[in-house]
């Protein structure tokens, strides 16, 4: 069972929402377990939000009539998101996933008002008794595609379409660049801040600008497949984001970092239903199946394949950490001593760039 509430309709129905708690309260008695989702973009973005919605669908498949999922899409980040989260809380959902960094404070705020409900915030760092956080170690995937980029780029310059300079994005840029520099020490990454997670036409234009400036590999931390299409048109390589986007760019698409939230969602809903749910912080990577790599393009050379597979294997068995010292940032500050591996805390607060990043 699914119910869809779009942001716009919700705003328009704000007056009617006042009556909702009573209706929801009555329905709660014999209702199936309610699981709510707050999405930052449209489910049809074929990127970030789409992967979370795939997770939601996996939940429905797993638990059938035992649960009822609902979602609100296109929720703007920031204080206003609290209204949307509250809406799901009042509608009888017992476990609510808020799936973007900018929902952090609103989630904490609403969670205080609904101490009996459970909340899960993706990519954030604030927790409470009833607020857990979860994230995927995308930087592991970035290290793999960075390795491929190092092998495949002739100009030694990659273009990176980034959204906002938050730690999550900064860490991806650094991981990508460091991995590429292991192959080609002079490798450079040019970053364009698109200041949006989703604007296909702008993402495509950003890709074109980067290609104009000599980048022959495009990668992105925005949500649409538009940049891949631009790369395909201009005859350079690119990587998909969040899901396999090879259909959009059969020649350009070298691989993609694929998010898979279904395993985590299925586990957490089960725990919430049987009462064993506890707040905590889960940060899963390639090893946990949360981050996967899409099949390599036929154009990826055997050497690049081998190197990429070796990086994946090293990450899974723990012998390789994408951030291993000695590591200095652009200003020459030593961030990691020789042989030292970055702690999760350091990663989640990263606000510096390594050499070779033009951001």
């Amino acid at each position, binding site marked *: 069972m699914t119910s869809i509430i779009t942001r716009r309709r919700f705003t328009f129905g704000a007056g009617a929402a006042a009556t909702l708690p009573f209706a929801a309260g009555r329905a709660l008695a014999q209702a199936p377990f309610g699981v709510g989702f707050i999405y930052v973009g*449209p489910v049809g973005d*074929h990127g970030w939000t789409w992967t979370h919605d795939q997770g939601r669908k996996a939940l429905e498949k797993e638990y059938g009539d035992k649960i009822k999922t609902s979602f609100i899409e*296109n929720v703007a980040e920031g204080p206003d998101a609290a209204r949307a989260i509250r809406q799901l809380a009042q509608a009888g959902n017992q476990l609510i996933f808020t799936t973007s960094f900018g929902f952090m404070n609103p989630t904490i705020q609403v969670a205080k008002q609904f101490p009996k409900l459970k909340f899960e915030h993706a990519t954030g760092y604030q927790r409470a008794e009833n607020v857990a956080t979860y994230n995927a170690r995308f930087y592991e995937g970035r290290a793999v595609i960075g390795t491929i980029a190092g092998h495949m780029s002739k100009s030694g310059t990659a273009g990176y379409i980034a959204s906002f300079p938050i730690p999550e994005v900064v860490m991806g840029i650094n991981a990508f660049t460091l991995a590429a520099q292991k192959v080609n020490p002079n490798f450079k990454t040019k970053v*364009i801040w698109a200041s949006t997670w989703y*604007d296909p*036409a702008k993402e495509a234009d950003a890709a074109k*600008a980067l290609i104009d*400036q000599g980048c022959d590999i495009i990668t992105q931390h925005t949500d649409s497949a538009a940049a891949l299409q631009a790369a395909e048109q201009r005859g350079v390589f690119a990587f998909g984001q969040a899901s396999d986007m090879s*259909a959009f760019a059969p020649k350009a698409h070298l691989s993609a970092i694929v998010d898979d939230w279904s395993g985590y969602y299925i586990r957490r809903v089960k725990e919430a239903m049987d009462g064993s749910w506890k707040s905590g912080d889960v940060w899963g990577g390639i090893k946990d199946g949360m981050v996967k790599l899409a099949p390599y393009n036929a154009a990826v050379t055997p050497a690049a394949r081998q190197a990429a597979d070796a990086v994946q294997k090293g990450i899974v068995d723990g012998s390789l950490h994408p951030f291993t010292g000695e590591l200095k940032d652009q200003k020459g500050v030593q961030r990691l001593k020789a042989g030292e591996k970055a702690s999760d805390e350091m990663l989640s607060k990263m606000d510096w760039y390594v050499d070779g990043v*033009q951001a």
Partner: protein
Amino acid sequence: MNSVILVSIVMTLVAAATPILLAALGELVVEKSGVLNLGVEGMMLCGAVAGFAVAYGTGSTGLGLAAAALAGIATAMVFAVLTLSLTANQVATGLALTIFGIGASSLIGAGFVGRTIERLGPVFPEALAGHPWLRVVFGHDVMVYLSLALVLAVSLFLRRTRPGLILRAVGENDQSAHAIGYPVIGIRYAAIAFGGALAGLGGAYFSLALTPMWADRLTAGRGWIALALVVFAAWRPGRLLLGAYLFGAVMTLELQAKAAGIAWLAPEVLAMAPYLATIVVLTMMSLRRGAGRLDAPACLGKAFTAS
């Protein structure tokens, strides 16, 4: 800066400006007839999804464009019936049309997410557009030339033809036009249909040319920029062209500056640039014209009932 980059910048800015220009030109005619249709974004999205669906189904981008124009008209007719025949509030109905368009396009497009089609290609043969500078002239797709021709046509229509004069009269003083015997409602229906067709084509430019795919909210707010451009242009087609290309240039140069690593400009400043430019131009125009009426048609947004 070498010429290859310069040509590429020009090509990108023209492509970025074209959908805004198309949608804004349609809205300009609508507003000249005295109707304010805030549903541009919704009509663009309906055009985008219809164009993609038909182009995907038939393999013909030409048919896709036709379908986009028809879908734009169909969406616009919902607005026309509500505001003209039922005299509903134009602002509220226009906003509702945008919300409706977002939802309807998302519903229709759900089955097309993740698919792609052949991009709308240049209209002239490759040989003619071989040299980089010739590419600036001959390297565009059909919609770019169509949009330019339409700017000229609308400009001539409004200023030099009798029907254009009548359309303006309806927008300036609907009661007088009615008293002389002109069918105010009929003329406004026609204007809204034209606006819908161009918004549909503008939307389809995203799904067929810029980013040949369907994704929810593909136009990402360009419909609102088109609406602002009409005011920016003081309801003149020539200035609309200038404004659209200026806006395209600012959007493109913002990205180029970032890619070139111009570090003294914060990315946030560059992201603000197009909107800052809009505010500056609007302020300058208001200052020059005193009261700031900005040449808006006198009956803009007012419901008409024959008296």
